[in-house]
């Protein structure tokens, strides 16, 4: 069944009681929270996302976060944490990569993977604060079988082809289907193509 495109920039737009939240929404929410304390003002999308997250709390709407989206949010935190730690580990980096002119967070990750243990506390803090904002991560027990009856790898390819999406975005739609959810919120223009079968909540 064909879905629709819902423009959340229109005043008074309503949300369904449950919708799948794409990683772009969580990342823009993170950016909205730190830019509200920065000299760089939040973008219109970030303002819209922050407004949507507040609306979810007022209207008791739950945003369901797929495992793929959670991975991308955690990647943001991991990358930022390693980026911040770079200046403190120059000796480790020079020992491991003596010929690299400027070391990146990936170099430090390879040289000092043990630092991930320290990032775990940050990840815990972020995921707990997501829960308090009505952002709930989907669990295996929430998911039914793939409605088409295909195997996961087959379904992933079919979903990528049908919606012209990359594998992560396609995986988000598959997880939404398995949870019986037909509404997706995203600020990523790519996911607008999901309106072939989903109601897509976005900012036009």
């Amino acid at each position, binding site marked *: 069944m064909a879905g629709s495109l819902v423009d959340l920039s229109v005043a008074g737009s309503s949300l369904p009681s*449950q919708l799948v939240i794409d990683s772009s929404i969580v990342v823009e929410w993170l950016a909205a929270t730190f830019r509200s304390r920065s000299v760089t003002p939040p973008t219109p999308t970030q303002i819209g996302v922050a407004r949507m997250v507040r609306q979810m709390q007022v209207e008791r709407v739950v945003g369901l976060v797929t495992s793929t989206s959670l991975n991308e949010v955690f990647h943001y935190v991991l990358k930022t944490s390693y980026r911040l730690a770079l200046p403190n580990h120059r000796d480790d980096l020079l020992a491991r990569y003596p010929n690299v002119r400027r070391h*990146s967070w990936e170099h430090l990750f390879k040289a000092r993977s043990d630092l991930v243990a320290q990032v775990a506390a940050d990840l815990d803090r972020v995921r707990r604060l997501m829960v*308090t*904002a009505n952002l709930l991560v989907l669990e295996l027990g929430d998911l039914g079988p793939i409605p088409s009856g295909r195997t996961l790898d087959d379904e992933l390819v079919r979903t990528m082809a049908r919606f012209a999406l*990359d594998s992560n975005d396609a995986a988000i739609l598959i997880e939404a289907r398995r949870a019986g959810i037909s509404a997706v919120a995203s600020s990523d223009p*790519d996911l607008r193509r999901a309106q072939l079968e989903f109601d897509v909540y976005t900012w036009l």
Partner: protein
Amino acid sequence: MVAQPERLSPKEHLDRRIAENLAEAERWRSEHGDPTEALGRFLVERFGIEALEATYQEYVRHEDSFLFDDYDDEDAEGEDEDGREPR
């Protein structure tokens, strides 16, 4: 006789978790206030604006994707992105 664990359908499982989550979130907010405010405070205190903004800008450069990371050719001159010598 050992009691069998309750078997829930995926929908029942999700509905139960949503109800628990809503209650837990509302309880937290009544005690601690706005989670958006709390998240911003934590992120800035822990990471600082500069590192947060650098990661965000990388995300924007890849048009809303973390599937790819920035690799600066100049940074890794004479080596590949892992710092290995080219063959």
